[in-house]
């Protein structure tokens, strides 16, 4: 499957003309990222497979209406995010996450940290298994409500810019900021609790 990478300008007219080689090139170029994004957003392999299929079908069906105001890649990832989040929101709601203040260290009345904070990021691997920490963060991600999970996945897992994430989710920057920060604090807390118990 050594399809050559085509740029949007070459690919779009060919797709609109239903050129099969162009369809193949498009899939070869985007399938891994679409699947990975769908998997992390939905948190479920079965859902991610369905999203993968639905996304490419939607792209082929809607390509005639694609006017090129956005980049082809942004358009495809946006369709992917919407489809994956729809799956996620269909599932039973997870619990609410604590407020920002409750996810940080306890503070004195003077606003200084009131308890020791362990820096488990510096622990060597034989004291805290990084692989297990990786599994732990995956579990923690599954505990996040969809609104928080989506921003964490787009920004921190997938590495989209703040602007791209805002566009994909139709969010204001302020909303992105507060959800992302609280989502990160929640994950950090989960890892910290784990590290406290498990470090040798």
């Amino acid at each position, binding site marked *: *499957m050594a399809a050559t990478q085509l740029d949007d300008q070459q690919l779009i007219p060919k797709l609109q003309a239903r050129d099969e080689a162009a*369809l*193949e090139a498009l*899939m070869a170029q985007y*399938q*891994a990222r679409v*699947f*990975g994004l769908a*998997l*992390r957003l939905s948190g479920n392999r079965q859902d991610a*497979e369905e999203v*993968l*299929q639905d996304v*490419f*079908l939607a792209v*082929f069906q809607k390509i*005639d*209406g694609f006017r090129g105001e956005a980049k082809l890649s942004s358009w495809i990832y946006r369709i992917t995010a919407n489809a994956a989040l729809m799956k996620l929101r269909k599932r039973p709601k997870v619990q609410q996450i604590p407020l920002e203040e409750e996810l*940080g*260290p306890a*503070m004195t009345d*003077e*606003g*200084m*940290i009131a*308890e*020791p*904070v*362990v*820096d*488990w*990021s*510096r622990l060597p691997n034989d004291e805290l298994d990084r692989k297990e*920490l*990786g599994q732990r*963060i*995956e579990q923690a*991600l599954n505990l996040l409500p969809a609104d928080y999970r989506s921003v*964490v996945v787009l920004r*921190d*897992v*997938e*590495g989209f810019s*703040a602007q791209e994430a805002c566009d994909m989710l139709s969010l204001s920057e302020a909303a992105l*900021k507060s959800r*992302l*920060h609280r989502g*990160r*604090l929640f*994950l*950090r807390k989960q*890892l*910290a609790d784990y590290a406290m118990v498990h470090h040798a």
Partner: protein
Amino acid sequence: MLRCRDVGMLLYEYIEQRLEPSVSQQLEQHLADCPGCLAFINTYKQTMRLSSDLRCRDIPPELQQKLRSFIKTKLSSRRPSFWERLRSHLTGLL
């Protein structure tokens, strides 16, 4: 002098590199003197790093195959007629 609570409130902007240089400097000064805030910020960054490790970059070959047969079936079962294509072309022009 920044308090730990201020550091907590500036943390996101600091990580995203959105702070004024002078504020950023004050924050770093606080970190140099405050092991608690330093540990908190290090573990916050480590959390982001672990998140980025979750990115999955591969798609199993059998899934690629499945995708292609799915698309093939869908596209051949609903190949638009000449008139449908003409109509969608014309509405596209409007």
